[in-house]
């Protein structure tokens, strides 16, 4: 019973990846948009995009972290 509930909980925790996927897609679509509008700023905006990607990805990693916690710690 507990095992099943754990698996369901861990699986449910990964739903959060959907949000992260949207976020990462958004970051890079904005990068492409801005570079298409102003190619001279490509280098600078790429730096910002990587920073934004890292921040978004970090939030995304909270989901597997919760899954691991549910599966292995409790």
């Amino acid at each position: 019973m507990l095992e099943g509930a754990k698996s369901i909980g861990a699986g449910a925790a990964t739903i959060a990846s959907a949000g992260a996927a949207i976020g990462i897609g958004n970051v890079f679509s904005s990068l492409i948009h801005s570079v298409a509008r102003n190619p001279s700023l490509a280098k600078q905006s790429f730096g910002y995009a990587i920073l934004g990607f890292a921040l978004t990805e970090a939030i995304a990693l909270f989901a597997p972290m919760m899954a691991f916690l549910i599966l292995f710690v409790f």
Partner: protein
Amino acid sequence: MNQIGLVAQSPLDQFEIVPLIPMNIGNFYFSFTNPSLFMLLTLSFFLLLIHFITKKGGGNLVPNAWQSLVELLYDFVLNLVKEQIGGLSGNVKQMFFPCILVTFLFLLFCNLQGMIPYSFTVTSHFLITLALSFSIFIGITIVGFQRHGLHFFSFLLPAGVPLPLAPFLVLLELISYCFRALSLGIRLFANMMAGHSLVKILSGFAWTMLCMNEIFYFIGALGPLFIVLALTGLELGVAILQAYVFTILICIYLNDAINLH
């Protein structure tokens, strides 16, 4: 069936802390553990690197490969500090630069060292990243109070806010300000831990399939193997990127504390 490597192992086993030299001072658990060992290794690595390069009073005029590496890292952080912290003269910025450089180098070397198989990732522990982020956060708050005195509290209230909204906004800003310390540490820890567990789980898959002793599985194992390879590359990127993100966020927070907003 071949049983090698099929021993059920939790992917979190790699983060286990083992006391190498058990010690107890009074009631304190003061052992020399494997994180201590690897932190010591990290420190000695970059201190040795920098020592050997600046040995003859500042290196060569024409740098060799190692010296260019150190110069690259130094320049990178220097530019970061110059760009992110505004409104100060160069000399005052220099005050913060050593701390930021050492933080960056420490995190970079810890993260990269963790990528070596069978080594230990120091930054995949809550305790270490949170200790780092909280001490830096407290330092930044002290810098803020030092520069602005009690006027630093105006940080909590953006200019031009209608008075009825003020109590809520102050509360919100206070929470978000305090949460910065937490999120700074958790971001690094979660990245390192999740990444390493993922690599471990996938390599476990590949290994299990290889051990099935059937030609179909043997070919099938190449899939997970290449994913592991790609993921290791990604992890290397993440290791560098997270050190960078940690550093740039410190700079941004420091800039907030110095210039208010």
